[in-house]
C-alpha cells in the first residue's frame, strides 16, 4: 500500500490524576503534562512497522487541535512519521466534527489505511474511527491487537468481550488499535533534531469545509462519587468472618 494516515490526539498524560475544577466548568489543565493519546502512539508505531517491513511507503500523522498540538505532531515525526498535518481547531471537538474533518483529509490524501486509537483517554468516546469508516463507506476493524497486511486486504485480530475475533478487511480501511498491538519505540535525541526538518503543514476546519458540531453541550462537570476507605483486617480468617457477616460468602 501507499499511504497510511495516523491520527494523533493531544490529551492529558495518562499518569496525571485528572481533577474537576471546583466551579464545575471543566477539568484542571493548567500546568498539566500533555501527551499523545497512548492508543495513538501505538497506532503510529504500527504504521511505522508496516512501512519498515516495506508494506507501505508513507506515514502521515494528523492532529486536530490548538497550535500546541504541534508538539505531539513533532513527537510523531521524531518517532518516524514522514510528514504531519495540523488541523487547527479548539480543543474539545466531538467525534462528529473530528470524523468529518478526517473524511475531508481522506479525500485529499487518499490513504490506503487510516489508523486511530480505539479511544481517546480524555472523552473516552471510542467513536471516531467507526464514524470515519461509515462516512467513507469503507471497512472498519476496531480494537486491533494484530494487523497482518496481505496485499490489498488486511487480516486483523480484534479484542472483543468473548476473546479474540479475526476479520478480513479490504483496503482502503479504517483500523482502531488496542493496547496490546505493540510497544511504541522511544524517541532518540537525533530523531528529534531530524524531525524539525520534516514537513508539518497546517490547515483549519474552514479550509476543509467542516463546521463544528454543537449538538453535544456539556452543562456541567462533577467529580465522581468517592468510595470511602473501609476497614483493615489482620488475616484471612478475619476477612472470611467479615464477609460472612455481610452475607457475601
Amino acid at each position, binding site marked *: 500500500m501507499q499511504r497510511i494516515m495516523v491520527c494523533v490526539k493531544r490529551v*492529558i498524560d495518562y499518569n496525571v*490524576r*485528572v481533577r474537576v475544577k471546583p466551579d464545575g466548568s471543566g*477539568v484542571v489543565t493548567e500546568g498539566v503534562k500533555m501527551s499523545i493519546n497512548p492508543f495513538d502512539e501505538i497506532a503510529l508505531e504500527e504504521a511505522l512497522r508496516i512501512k519498515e517491513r516495506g508494506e507501505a511507503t508513507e506515514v502521515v500523522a494528523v492532529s486536530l487541535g490548538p497550535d500546541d498540538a504541534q508538539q505531539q505532531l513533532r513527537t510523531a515525526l521524531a518517532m518516524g512519521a514522514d510528514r504531519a498535518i495540523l488541523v487547527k481547531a479548539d480543543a474539545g471537538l*466531538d*467525534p*462528529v466534527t473530528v470524523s468529518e474533518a478526517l473524511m475531508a483529509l481522506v479525500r485529499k490524501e487518499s490513504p490506503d489505511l487510516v489508523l486511530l486509537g*480505539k479511544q481517546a483517554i480524555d472523552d*473516552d468516546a471510542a*467513536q*471516531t*474511527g*467507526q*464514524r470515519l469508516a*461509515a*462516512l467513507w*463507506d469503507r*471497512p*472498519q*476493524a*476496531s*480494537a486491533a*491487537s494484530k494487523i497482518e497486511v496481505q496485499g490489498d486486504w488486511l*487480516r486483523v485480530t*480484534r*479484542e472483543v*468481550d*468473548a*476473546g*479474540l*475475533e*479475526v*476479520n*478480513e*478487511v*479490504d483496503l482502503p480501511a479504517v483500523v482502531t488499535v488496542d*493496547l*496490546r498491538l505493540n510497544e511504541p519505540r522511544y524517541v532518540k535525541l537525533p530523531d528529534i533534531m531530524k524531525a524539525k526538518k520534516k514537513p508539518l503543514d497546517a490547515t483549519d476546519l474552514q479550509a476543509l469545509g467542516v463546521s463544528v458540531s454543537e*449538538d*453535544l*453541550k*456539556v*452543562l456541567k*462537570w*462533577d*467529580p465522581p462519587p468517592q*468510595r470511602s*476507605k*473501609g*476497614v*483493615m*483486617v489482620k*488475616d*484471612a*480468617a478475619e*476477612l*472470611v468472618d467479615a*464477609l460472612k457477616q*455481610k452475607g*457475601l460468602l
Partner: protein
Amino acid sequence: MSQVLIVAEHSGGQLSPATSKCVTCARGIPDAVITVAVLSDSGAGVAAQAAELEGVSKVLLVDNPANAQPLAAVLAPQVAALAKDCSHVLGTSTTFGKDLMPRVAALLGAPQLSDVMAVESANRFRRPVYAGNAIVTVEVPAGRQLVCTVRVASYDAAPEGGDAPVESIALDSALPRHTRFVSVSAPDSGRPDLQTASRVVSGGRAFGSKEKFESIYQLADKLGAAVGASRAAVDAGYAPNELQVGQTGKIIAPELYVAIGISGAIQHMTGIKDAKTIVAINKDPDAPIFEVADYGLVGDLFAILPELEKLV
C-alpha cells in the same frame, strides 16, 4: 413521546444480559416506547427472549444469513434503516456496541453519547470521561436524534414478564462484502461470565507467572466466582485478554470483588467503581487500592491464598 430503538446483542441464541440493562436505561427516558431490534441469521429465539422483557413494546426481527456474525459494517446500514424515525437509538457499551453504534450514528448523521450512566430527561444524560475521573452532564437539542451506548454496569437487568409482539421484517439495504468474519476464540471456561457474575476474583502482576495465576481459578471455583485480571497480568500472559478489568477491559459491578496483588491504578479502578464490596489483598500497605477497598488485608498473597481457600 420518545421512540427508542435498542439494538440487541446476542450470541449462541442467547440474548445478552447487557441488552436487558439497556432496556432499564431506556425505561428512564420519559414516555419511551421501546422497540428491540434483533439482527441474526436465525433470531426467533432471541426475539422471544427480548419480547419477555418488561417495558418492551415491540420486537423487530431481521433474519438474514449475512447477519450470522456481528460485523458492524454489515449490521449498521440495517440498523440505520430501522432507526430512521426513532428519537433514540441505544446499544450496549460492550465491544459489540462500541464497534457498531458509532457507525450507525454516522449513517444517521446523529451525534452519539457513549457510556450513558444516567438519564436526566429525554435530551439530557450523564456519562463518565477521563477514565471515570469526571462525570459530565450533556444536553442535546430537544428533538435531535441521538445514538447512545449504555454503560451496563450502571443498570440492573429489566425484569421478565412482558409479552411484546415480534414482527419479522425484510430489509433491502445493500450489504457490503468488504469485511469478512473469520473466527472468534470463545474459550468456554465453564465459569461464571465476568460481566454478569455476582462475585469476581482478580489477580495482578504480583502472581509472576501463568502457573501461579492458576491459584486464582481454584479460589474462584470455590466461591463460584468469575476470574478477572489487571492489564499487567494480561500483558504478561498470565491471563487471556477477555479477563481484563478496567478502562480498556471490562467494566463490572459484582456484589463482591476481590483484588489480589493488584496495585489499584486509576485505569483498573474505573472498571470496578460500581462493585458493591471491594476486598484488596496486597503486601504493600500503601497500595492505592486500599483507599477504596471495603476490606483490606496486608500480606503476601502466596501465604494468604491457601488459607483463604481452606476457609471458604
